[in-house]
């Protein structure tokens, strides 16, 4: 009888371990830190960012899904003089610069096998990015809101909490390129590198 229980237990563990590899859906929530690169209106990183993502596994190693993220960039710029292109106007002020980005992408991920449970992945998200850019100075505000196309190539890993718990950590790093433009602030596009850590809930 005891041997039967042990055999049954081994079979159950094997079945669960096999199931862990066959995910159907994953719901992720992550904290994202983003570092602007290139000629950027705000050069300070965004620590107040995150994302929600949904992934549906169409094959064992491939998922399709959607991601909704956000970032808040903010920077104080001390008193400086700015001139217009033909140098007929100039303004001197300090200012608080602010950008809020909201990328929305449709994603595809390919997963690799690494050990028994860790699933490294590469992915690409394509979609639209809403962005609001603002400069506050004295009691004045200049603000612009615009939309752009966004591409988010990324790498990462899904690490289950344990052999039997399919929920796990979602680690990722990537690059964000968006075509949002703002002539007032001389923004031609928005680029950043980002890293994220989160939790993926699976079923």
């Amino acid at each position: 009888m005891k041997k039967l229980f042990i055999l049954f237990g081994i079979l159950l563990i094997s079945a669960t371990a096999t199931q862990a590899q066959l995910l159907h859906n994953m719901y992720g929530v992550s904290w994202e830190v983003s570092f602007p690169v290139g000629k950027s209106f705000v050069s300070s990183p965004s620590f107040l960012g995150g994302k929600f993502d949904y992934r549906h596994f169409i094959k064992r190693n491939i998922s399709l899904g959607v991601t909704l993220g956000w970032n808040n960039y903010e920077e104080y710029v001390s008193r400086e003089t700015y001139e217009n292109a033909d140098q007929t106007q100039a303004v001197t002020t300090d200012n608080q610069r602010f950008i809020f980005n909201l990328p929305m992408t449709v994603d595809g991920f390919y997963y690799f096998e690494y050990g028994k449970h860790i699933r490294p992945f590469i992915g690409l998200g394509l979609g639209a990015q809403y962005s609001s850019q603002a400069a506050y100075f004295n009691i004045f505000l200049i603000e612009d809101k615009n939309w752009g196309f966004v591409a988010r190539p990324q790498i990462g890993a899904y690490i289950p909490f344990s052999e039997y718990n399919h929920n796990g950590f979602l680690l990722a790093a990537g690059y964000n390129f968006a075509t949002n433009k703002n002539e007032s602030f001389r923004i031609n596009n928005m680029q950043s590198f980002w890293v994220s850590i989160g939790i993926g809930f699976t079923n």
Partner: protein
Amino acid sequence: MLKRRLIFAVLLLITVVSCKKNPDLSRLSSAFVVQTTRDKQADFRSFATYYISDTIFYVSNAASQDTFIAGPAANAIVGEIKRQMNNRGYTFIGRPNRPDILLDVIAVRQVNTGVIWPPGWWWGFPGGPVICDFWGCWPVWNPMPPTTFQYSVGDVIVEFFDVKNAPITGKLQYAWLAQLSGVLSSTDATNVNRTVSGIQEAFAQSPYIQK
């Protein structure tokens, strides 16, 4: 099922949009924003003399009969403009002597008033004040009095007119314009100091004003 997912997606979007941070404005200075505009056709080297009045035009929506500012405040502001112009090689002369440049200063003060109405959110809130009668207990509608607040914003405008070429062009055209803008202090001395600093910055950002 689809409807439920749609509602969830909308709620998620609202949640994410509400993650927009309020900017931290605590570091912003109260110094005036200084703007200058120039006429690119103006030849500043062709001017030699200037005139500026020792009073300042004053425009305000506040209850005041004053239409100009004179005395120590005007002296400090006009004095700084004279100092800057002299440093750039121009000579102050009296108005009857037909100066090449006419400078004037306009101060604008706009007083804004607002009212904060407390919302009375405690209407029916558990633990709030109640009045009981034969039919039951009822929350008291006891709103807090509204609070008023007032602040002033102002502009100081310095106009630089090309008088020398007015007979030729048939127009009294400005060659340079400086505008200092921002919230005003309740202390006149602070406003004068900010204006003097602003005038210095206006000239600093206009190196082309040179005899």
